[in-house]
């Protein structure tokens, strides 16, 4: 293998990142135009958000219950079971809520967005729009992107609330941690910057996952195989990107 091959591959990857950046810049204008038609965005918030609710709530409940069990097991070794509320709330609000919601979003809403847009490309729907002098970036891509960005913090908030309920169910209901200390310690120790961290993370993940989903769909090869590959790429890249950004944001907030 020639020494140039890895360099070519590396430069190709950098070029791909550049193309995503350029796509994001191209999307800015259409996003402004899409904001003037809120009904389109609300419809996409419903598609990306409301339709992901069941999976988000179910996973939030189980993650919260696991946190309750693991947290109780760890804290009771130090005689601090009463701190279970803080541990569960901080773990969920700052870390697990945004990250797991983003991963689930990529798997549920992200793949749906990519395959929908990819199939629109494959069946000439996007080309037909262009021929009707309608910019697909403005009519199709921007509302879906904004819908995803808006849906992510809302889903994260629901995930957090259900997760805390799950931790309460196990900690208080099963392990007999005192309900008063569970809630009061949580209330006294969770501060606004913890909430802000969660909100910022969910917004950033919302931008990253939604951008990746619409980018992959818009640039999918217009074949069954191409749409399938694009959908896979959406999940893989979104997951890696979410964890990478999570590390960077966590470091920035500490």
């Amino acid at each position: 293998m020639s020494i140039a091959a890895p360099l070519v591959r590396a430069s190709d990857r950098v070029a791909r990142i550049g193309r995503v950046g350029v796509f994001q810049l191209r999307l800015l204008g259409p996003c402004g135009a899409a904001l003037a038609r809120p009904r389109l965005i609300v419809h996409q918030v419903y598609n990306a958000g409301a339709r992901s609710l069941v999976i988000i709530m179910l996973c939030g409940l189980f993650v919260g219950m696991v946190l309750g069990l693991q947290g109780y097991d760890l804290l009771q070794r130090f005689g601090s079971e009463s701190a279970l509320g803080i541990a569960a709330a901080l773990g969920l609000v700052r870390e697990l809520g945004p990250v797991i919601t983003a991963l689930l979003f990529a798997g549920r809403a992200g793949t749906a967005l990519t395959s929908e847009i990819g199939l629109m490309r494959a069946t000439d729907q996007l080309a037909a729009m262009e021929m009707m002098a309608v910019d697909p970036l403005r009519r199709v891509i921007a509302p879906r992107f904004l819908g995803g960005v808006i849906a992510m913090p809302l889903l994260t908030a629901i995930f957090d609330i259900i997760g805390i309920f799950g931790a309460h169910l196990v900690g208080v209901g099963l392990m007999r941690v005192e309900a008063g200390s569970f809630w009061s310690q949580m209330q006294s120790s969770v501060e606004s910057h913890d909430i802000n961290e969660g909100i910022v993370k969910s917004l950033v993940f919302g931008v990253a996952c939604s951008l990746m989903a619409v980018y992959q769909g818009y640039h999918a090869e217009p074949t069954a195989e191409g749409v399938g590959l694009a959908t896979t790429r959406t999940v893989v890249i979104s997951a890696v990107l979410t964890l990478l950004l999570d590390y960077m944001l966590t470091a920035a907030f500490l």
Partner: protein
Amino acid sequence: MAAVTPPAGGTLVEVRDVHYAVAGRPPVFSGVSLTAARGRITAIMGPSGTGKTTLLRLMMGAIRPQQGSVAMFGRDVATLGHAELYAMRRRVGMLFQNGALLTDLDVFENVAFPVREHTRLPEPLLRRLVLMKLQAVGLRGAAEMRPAALSGGMARRVALARAIVMDPELLIYDEPFVGLDPISMGVILRLIQALNETLGITSIVVSHDVHELTAIAHQSYLLSEGRVVAAGTPQQLAAEPTPVVRQFMSGAADGPVPFHYPAPDYRAQLLAEEA
């Protein structure tokens, strides 16, 4: 509706010496020239893979020729900016091979789509306009159906209603007869002719269905191997002695356009595999 005679003369579309190639592949066009007269039906025919749809994409400014020019409404498409190109496209209706209906909208909303995007027409007026267009293609009763529930012929007619809803000056049909049963084909054929005769809409029909096209076209072009090999009225094309035209018009399996894709010697290949 009373029939109006299409206004004679005047060129709406002019393709002049167009060369187009995709990198790493043989050229699609090497010097194609043709015109579409105002108020007439122009047929562009040719075997599969001759670049008929590519030619339409060149006309609509979706791609640009490497050499030569495509003029629509008297302006070179390649020189138009984004806004001018979109303004030009608003004067054109295009019917896609598969209809290209928006699958998340019902039939009514598909037809209303360009109107909603480009105008602020009051809802009652828009409703009347869309129902009129659906009535013209015989599908007013299907207004609430989803595209997935339509047959191929119905989808094509809905797409036609959508293409004419903005009252375009030019209608471009990309393979409008593909995959249709004889009744649906007859309906589409009649609609193309009726739109031309009653509204005087200039039409460009790209297809390889010789008999259907020759029945309605005023002017025909035959593309082969990247250039126009014959042009004229359907009668002139039928009388054309050139072998490639004869093969296409008669539907012969073999001839200048070979049945076999270029391959190594058959016998040698079989024996080599055996060995």
